[in-house]
């Protein structure tokens, strides 16, 4: 089987991830930060080690500013719904995933104004267009780091500079880049970084979080939920410090044990190395697909300008049929349709038909890329 759906979730997972999860459930199993006994403290250590690993990966100085949650969607909701108020203006791009677009549309109905800066059909965003959209009431720029449809990288650092220049917060959705492309929250000037554990970080589903920078006013940040934190139990008000402000209820400790192991595994290999390997595979795939006359490939068509996510269509065959036949006849798993991102498909001109998406990951090989190209050639001939 060839698994080319890593943009949805990475698979398989590195063996240490599986071991860490199993070990956590069978050997530790207590609630972190709730009781003072040895097992509870051990569970707390697992969670803290996961914070340290994530902070190291993204060059965040303070592990306690890594707030864990279920996934990047929750993290982005926390950043957007937690910080934007009626009367605020927010700038975003036209290739956002619905995890950003839907919370923004809901906020818009409650009095937050929204500017969607148009990207090019390849998914490129002009930083100057972002700057031109800044108004006196602008509070935040919310950006995808790389499109989940065409893989296009957005100029986060350039926009970060603009955001600092106008005293705005920059929120970045790193769903498609965390673990696959170098991210440094300090030099990229990212104030709010949403990450998910189960994609290129190679951890389990049900893990993710938000890194909250020092420019964010915690007194203004409304958590998505309030409840037990194991701290300040004598008070009926939510603690105002991180991570407890944003982490109510028992965390997914086995998941975070797995995430910690995954990030350590990534750090040992180095994100730069993973990126180099994936860009080589991406270019082979791009070249091979473009050589098929009836295949249209979307996006930058340049491995330096994108992550290992590639969208294409076969002329004369619906993307859903391509996906089904790749699965049934060629044993290739991929994702077809709109990829939860109608805005991106409108931008690249494939709405509402959608595309076939190949999402490569750490475990894919040159042989798999060759087999997939042969399969698409066969389908193109039969279309």
């Amino acid at each position, binding site marked *: 089987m060839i698994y080319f759906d890593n943009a949805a979730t990475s698979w398989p997972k590195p063996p240490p991830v599986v071991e860490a999860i199993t070990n956590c459930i069978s050997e530790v199993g207590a609630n*972190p*930060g*709730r*009781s*003072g*006994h040895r097992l*509870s*403290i051990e569970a*707390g*250590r697992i*969670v*803290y080690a996961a*914070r340290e690993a994530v902070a190291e990966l993204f060059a965040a100085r303070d*592990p*306690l500013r890594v707030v864990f949650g279920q996934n990047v969607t929750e993290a982005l909701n926390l950043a957007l719904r937690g910080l934007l108020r009626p009367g605020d203006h927010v700038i975003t791009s036209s290739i956002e995933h619905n995890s950003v677009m839907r919370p923004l549309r809901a906020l818009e109905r409650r009095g937050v104004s929204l500017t969607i800066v148009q990207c090019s059909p390849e998914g490129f965003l002009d930083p100057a267009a972002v700057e031109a959209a800044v108004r006196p009431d602008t509070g935040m720029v919310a950006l995808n780091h790389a499109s989940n449809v065409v893989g296009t990288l957005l100029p986060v650092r350039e926009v970060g500079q603009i955001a600092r220049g106008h005293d705005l917060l920059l929120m970045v959705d790193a769903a498609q880049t965390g673990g696959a492309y170098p991210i440094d929250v300090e030099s990229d000037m990212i104030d709010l970084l949403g990450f998910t554990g189960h994609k290129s970080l190679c951890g389990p589903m049900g893990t993710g979080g938000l890194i909250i920078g020092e420019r964010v006013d915690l007194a203004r940040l409304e958590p998505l939920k309030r409840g037990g*934190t*194991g*701290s*300040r*139990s*004598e008070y009926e008000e939510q*603690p105002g*410090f991180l*991570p*407890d402000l944003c982490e109510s209820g028992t965390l997914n400790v086995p998941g975070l044990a797995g995430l910690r192991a995954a990030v350590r595994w990534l750090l040992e290999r180095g994100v730069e190395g993973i990126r180099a390997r994936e860009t080589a595979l991406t270019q082979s795939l791009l070249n091979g697909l473009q050589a098929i006359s009836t295949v249209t490939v979307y996006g930058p068509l340049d491995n330096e300008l994108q992550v290992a996510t590639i969208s294409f269509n076969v002329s004369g065959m619906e993307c859903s049929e391509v996906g089904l036949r790749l699965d049934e006849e060629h044993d290739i798993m991929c994702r077809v349709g709109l990829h939860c991102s109608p805005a991106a498909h409108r931008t690249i001109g494939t709405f509402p038909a959608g595309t076939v998406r190949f999402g490569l990951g750490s475990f894919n090989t040159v042989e798999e890329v060759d087999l997939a190209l042969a399969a698409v050639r066969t389908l193109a001939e039969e279309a």
Partner: protein
Amino acid sequence: MTRPEYAVVTVYSTSHALRAEKVLQRVGITNKLIPVPRRISSDCGVCVRILQVDAEPARRALEAAGVEVEGIQSL
């Protein structure tokens, strides 16, 4: 043999306690995470127990490392 005299470093959360533990270990101050004694706080979390003689070096080490400390009290 007499029981050693202890002090406890109280912090805001278990995460802070784990951070304090790391700092103290790094500078070689013997410590142990224990449940917060009820007479010190009604909080349900943990605190860091140290030897009373280490109270001042611990305070300095934690301050230097930027660990937020609620207080250091004798047990």
